[in-house]
């Protein structure tokens, strides 16, 4: 928060600055990469130029509709489920100490099982279909949300809790007006982590029982030594991650408006 300067070309300069922030470091990194690969013949590391051509050739076309879009759909479904379940269970577990004691070791147990070995089991129980892949995404993406929600709920300010108790604000009201908002900064930190984990699991879920999808395609490229294509697939993943984070930030700004206001107005400097 610099000095308040509500005048004139703030919009334009702010836009330019944001763009610079958005692209500055990536540009530097690309330059460095370009410089490093300028006379390299390493089979496994393509040059930026190669990568861009490959990227266009590979992903602009039917592959986008056949592989990328369905994957994004499953990812979206998985993330939505993970958020709903993670927050719901997180609040339950965070609110009741006994429940926490009962479930925590079990959850830690399940959490430590690598998705790669979990997939066959899910395949067995659910079948080889989209639902299985969504469940794989949920099975990994739920943890940061769940854990953060639990911690956020537990850290709710005592005076605020007491206030609710005395005014007999309970049940759904308490959830809606105290528990959720109070934990929301931490919940959203968890959601942000889950976005990228969901993406990673989308790839893993498509490594099994698949014949299409972004993750499948990347692994297929890798296995068939189509290295520039593989990197271009990773680029797609990165871009999706970037897109998710932009959407996330817009949502976060809305949900946490009070929080950012509180922090930023007061921490003026």
């Amino acid at each position, binding site marked *: 928060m610099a000095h308040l300067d509500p005048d004139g070309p703030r919009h334009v300069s702010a836009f330019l600055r944001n763009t610079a922030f958005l692209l500055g470091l990536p540009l530097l990194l690309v330059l460095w990469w370009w410089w490093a690969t300028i006379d390299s013949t390493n089979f496994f590391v393509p040059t930026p130029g190669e990568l861009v051509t490959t990227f266009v050739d590979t992903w602009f076309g039917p592959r986008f509709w056949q592989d990328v879009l369905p994957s994004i759909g499953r990812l979206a479904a998985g993330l939505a489920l993970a958020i709903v379940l993670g927050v719901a269970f997180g609040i339950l577990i965070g609110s009741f100490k006994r429940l926490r004691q009962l479930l925590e070791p079990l959850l830690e147990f399940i959490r430590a099982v690598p998705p790669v070995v979990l997939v066959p089991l899910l395949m067995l129980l659910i079948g080889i279909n989209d639902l299985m892949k969504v469940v794989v995404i949920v099975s990994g993406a739920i943890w940061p949300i769940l854990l953060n929600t639990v911690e956020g709920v537990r850290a709710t300010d005592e005076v605020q809790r*007491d206030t609710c108790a005395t005014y007999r604000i309970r049940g759904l009201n308490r959830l809606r007006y105290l528990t959720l908002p109070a934990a929301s900064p931490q919940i959203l930190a968890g959601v942000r982590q889950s976005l990228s984990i969901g993406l990673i699991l989308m790839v893993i879920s498509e490594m099994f029982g698949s014949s299409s999808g972004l993750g499948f395609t990347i692994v297929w490229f890798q296995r068939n030594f189509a290295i520039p294509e593989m990197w271009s697939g990773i680029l797609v993943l990165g871009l999706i991650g970037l897109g998710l984070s932009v959407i996330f930030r817009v949502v976060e700004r809305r949900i946490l408006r009070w929080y950012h206001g509180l922090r930023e107005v007061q921490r003026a400097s």
Partner: protein
Amino acid sequence: MLQVAGLRKIYPTATGGFEAIRNLTFDVPAGQLACIVGPSGAGKTTLLKCIAGLLPRTEGVLELHGKDITGPPKTMAVVFQEYGRSLFPWMTVERNVELPLKAAGVPKAERRARAAEALEQVDLADAGGKYPWQLSGGMQQRVAIARAVAYRPEVLLMDEPFAAVDAQTRADLEDLVRRIWKELGITILFVTHDIDESVYLGERVIVLSAAPTVVQDDILVDLPADRDQLRTRSLPRFAELRTHVFEEIQRAKAEAKTGAIPAR
């Protein structure tokens, strides 16, 4: 109506427990306005929290309407000493005031009206749309008071509710408390550090000793029921009473100094 008998409260600590309240016994009949004074750290907040059902007691009887207090009773409102933290930063002032009414199922229109009225009474009619963290300390405290007033509880517990407001506002708020007390016929327990305030406001002043706390004195305020900032405060009886309360607190502090504070 409110019965406190043999109340004892020990806070668990790493070193085994701290005895904040040793033995408190007093009754508050329905519709009384009782002030509680005592040295800093005497256990006033602790007492209020026990009565509000927020803190389990270690020993003793706590009854409201003859029923044991096991959790926050209905129709009780509390204004906390940590007013800043008792407001929800994610809601505007208006919504903070409305929230308890909403939870109690008061219809929207009435809720709005009551909140607006209460904010008006604490002189914050303009601040309804702001967030608590956009307010000054005194304004925050007044929001907490407005929230309690709008709730129209049967029992109102207030923990140094006027600590952060200026003298004039304070006087206005004092009169507000007496007015709603009379109008609604509610029971009020009012913690304050201001001896004049305790005498001016209360019908009775309970003086607590230093921790571990007992009732040091219980003074009936025999001033006329209609009080006025200028006239009442200049009554000779007012001066007598305040001197008496002052001396009692002095004595409470002096005793605490000599005797070591026992801890379990």
